[in-house]
C-alpha cells in the first residue's frame, strides 16, 4: 500500500508532543511555531543551552522546508494545501526530536540522500571546515537558502541526521527527517 499522510501524521503524534502541525509552511507560521515552542520550553524550565539548540534547529529545519518545499503537488490524491509540510516537536525521555515531513520530487532524492550521508559521516572538525567553506565560497541561492542548514544542524546537535523516503507515486516520495537534540 502506498504512503498515507494521515496515518503518518497520527503515528508521529503519539509521543510526548510539544507541537504538531500539518499544512502550509509560511513565514507567519514559522513565527508562531517559534513563539509557541519557546514558551513551552520556558514553562518546563529547560536549560538555556538546550532551549537555544532546539530553537536553532527549529529555525533551520522550518526555513529549509520554507525554501525548498514543493509549491504544488500534482497527482497527489489527498487535498493538500500549497507548500504543504509537516512539523512535530516531541520529547522522548531526556531528549527532544524535531521531525519534518514533505513531499519531494523523486529526481531530488539522490542529491539530498548523498548530502545527508556525507554530513553524517563527518567528524566535528570536518563539519566545521565544511561550514566555513560554504559560508565563505558559496552565494546565497535565489531561493534564499544558503546550503548551510543541514550542516549547521549537524554541528549544533552533534548527532547523525535520520531520514527516510517513503515512495508515493512516479513523481513524488515523502521525505521524513528526524533531528535529535
Amino acid at each position, binding site marked *: 500500500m502506498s504512503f498515507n499522510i494521515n496515518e503518518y501524521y497520527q503515528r508521529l503524534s503519539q509521543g510526548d508532543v510539544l507541537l504538531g502541525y500539518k499544512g502550509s509552511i509560511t513565514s507567519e507560521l514559522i513565527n508562531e511555531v517559534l513563539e509557541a515552542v519557546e514558551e513551552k520550553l520556558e514553562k518546563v524550565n529547560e536549560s538555556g543551552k538546550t532551549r537555544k539548540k532546539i530553537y536553532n534547529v527549529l529555525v533551520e529545519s522550518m526555513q529549509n522546508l520554507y525554501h525548498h518545499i514543493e509549491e504544488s503537488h500534482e497527482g497527489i490524491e489527498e487535498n493538500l494545501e500549497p507548500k504543504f509540510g509537516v512539523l512535530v516537536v516531541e520529547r522522548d525521555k531526556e531528549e527532544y526530536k524535531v521531525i519534518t515531513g514533505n513531499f519531494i520530487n523523486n529526481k531530488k532524492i539522490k542529491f539530498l540522500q548523498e548530502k545527508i550521508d556525507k554530513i553524517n559521516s563527518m567528524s566535528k572538525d570536518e563539519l566545521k571546515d565544511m561550514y566555513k567553506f560554504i559560508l*565563505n565560497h558559496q*552565494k546565497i541561492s535565489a531561493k534564499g537558502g544558503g546550503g548551510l542548514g543541514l550542516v549547521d544542524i549537524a554541528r549544533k546537535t552533534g548527532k547523525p541526521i535520520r531520514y527516510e523516503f517513503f515512495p508515493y507515486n512516479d513523481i513524488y516520495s515523502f521525505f521524513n527527517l528526524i533531528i535529535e537534540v
Partner: protein
Amino acid sequence: MEPLFIEGTQKTPSIDFDPSKGALEIKGRSIPENSIEFYKPLVDWLETYSEKPATKTVVNVHLEYFNTSSSKCILDVFKKLESIHKSNNDVQINWYYEEDDEDMLEAGEDYESIIRVPFKMIEIVD
C-alpha cells in the same frame, strides 16, 4: 554621513550605526527568511562609509540567535569592515555571547578565522 538606525523585530536585529563616531551595533535575533533584503541597507551604508571612515571603527555584535541565511550576510558586513581595516584604519569587532553558549562563541571564532580584523570575544555573565 547620516546615521542608520533600524529597529529590531521578532526576526531581525536592531542596527545602530553612527558613522561620525565609527560605532556600529547589531543586536537581537537575526532569523529572517530573506536576509539579503534585510542586510542590504547596512552593507550599502558601510560601502559609503568606507570611503571616509572614522579613525577608529568599533563594531559590537550582540546576537542571541542567527540563522544560516543571515550568517552569509554577516560575513558580507565583516568583509566590508575588513577592507576598511586593510586601508590602514583601526577596526575592532566585539563578539558578545551569553555565558555557556558555546555555539555562539564558536560562530564568532569561525568568523575570526575567516576575516582579518581584530576580534574580541566577550562573555556576558548574568
